[in-house]
């Protein structure tokens, strides 16, 4: 316990401006803008509709101490009923189509849908086939798309902000 506490003291706060000055300023600006909106308490439900998990890794990075999106009042939640925003990744596979619709119906209004990653935006390399419905917009109405394969955490933060701004 004592070594652990010592280590915590030695480490200090890690949510600092990153080495390159420009992205650092960008993160700060985005944080401030996100703060001013949606009652300062946005909750996100991540829905994997058939993704390869590349996007999930980047979304996961939003929760680390470096990007620390939770420190700005944005939280990932365990149930669509707690959420304000559905963050959907991957081409919508036939198996996940119904699940995605149910998750959308379970989310209380006002709600937003953001499609993250190239597959969710356009169907990506999978397109529409006997196994895939293609892009998320084919199943539920999408408010905003975040392109990228996978989108970087910074792009994701930008996208979340842009969606909330409407």
């Amino acid at each position, binding site marked *: 316990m004592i070594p652990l506490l010592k280590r915590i003291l030695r*480490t200090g706060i890690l*949510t600092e401006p990153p080495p390159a000055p420009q992205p650092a300023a960008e993160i700060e600006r985005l944080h401030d803008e996100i703060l001013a909106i949606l009652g300062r*308490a946005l909750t996100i439900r991540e829905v994997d509709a058939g993704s390869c998990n590349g996007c999930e890794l980047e979304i996961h990075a939003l929760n680390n101490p470096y990007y*620390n999106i*939770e*420190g700005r009042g944005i939280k990932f939640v365990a*149930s669509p009923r*707690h959420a304000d925003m559905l963050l959907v990744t991957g081409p919508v596979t036939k198996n996940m189509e119904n699940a995605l619709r149910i998750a959308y119906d*379970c989310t209380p*209004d006002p709600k937003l849908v953001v499609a993250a990653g190239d597959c969710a935006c356009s169907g990506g390399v999978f397109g529409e086939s006997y196994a895939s419905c293609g892009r998320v917009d084919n199943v539920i109405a999408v408010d905003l798309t975040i392109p990228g394969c996978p989108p970087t955490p910074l792009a994701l933060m930008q996208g979340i902000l842009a969606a909330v701004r409407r």
Partner: protein
Amino acid sequence: MNIIGLLAQLFAIALALFLAPLLTGWVNQCRAWLQSRTAPPLLQPYYMLHKLFNKDVVLAHGASSLFRFAPFIVFGCMVLACAIVPTLSTDLPFAPAADTIALVGVFGLARIFIALAAMDVGTSFGSLGGRREMLIGFLAEPALLMVIFTTALISQSTSVATIVETLAQREFAIYPSLAFAGVAFTFVSFAENARVPVDNPATHLELTMIHEAMILEYSGRHLALLEWAASLKLYAYSCLGLALFFPWGIPNGDSFPALLAAIPLLVFKLAIGGSLLAIIETVNAKMRIFRAPEYLGTAFLLAVLGLLVRLLLETRV
């Protein structure tokens, strides 16, 4: 009961409603700092409540009226608990209305309703959470009662107000039994408030959560009430712990100047307690659910030891 006393009681309840989310926010801030992050604002729980009260409610198919009423019952129970625990004064009108055993009963009532509501919708996670909550609850309650009996033996009364008066305003004395009871109480309050060794308030991994699993189906104002009730429960437990083990500075009277003078000390004690809670949570790992009975058994054992120490060693003939 006079009108001044009633006003003082209402003031104490209003203060509890106001301070409870603040305490939760403070614990979250301390946790974030200990994880080398910048912390969310202190008022974050208020922003969350404000947002949730402004959202729609989505009810599950097949949710009965129990599901809709449970948040109000749970919230009411927690407000009542906060009114019984002496925070600002030991001489408030609600104090003689219920003793510590009734207080444990109020917590039990809230637990039963939230567990029933979790099972009401019929989802697997709801029933899983409800059963786990009852498991933790039926192990934690006897230990809590034993802790309370130890303090009740010292003051010869089970009324919270009398216990606090005896401990705070009699001549200074050190009771070894209280040390055992204090450790046991800490164990129990971690388990009861869904804190780290037993449950993780920050987890979203369905198979590890207990409290969160029960409220997965709630949304909008129902969820807001349940989150507020969780904050109130943490506040009530913190205040009960402070009242039993660090009662100094709680005035005996219902005059407003005395009440107002007690607020800064209360806030100071809660801030210290909250940061200690965050430190203990950070240096501990969450236990497997099957270790919880051992953990709560230890708490019960310590509480019984405290009781025995009181009975055998401290009683003067």
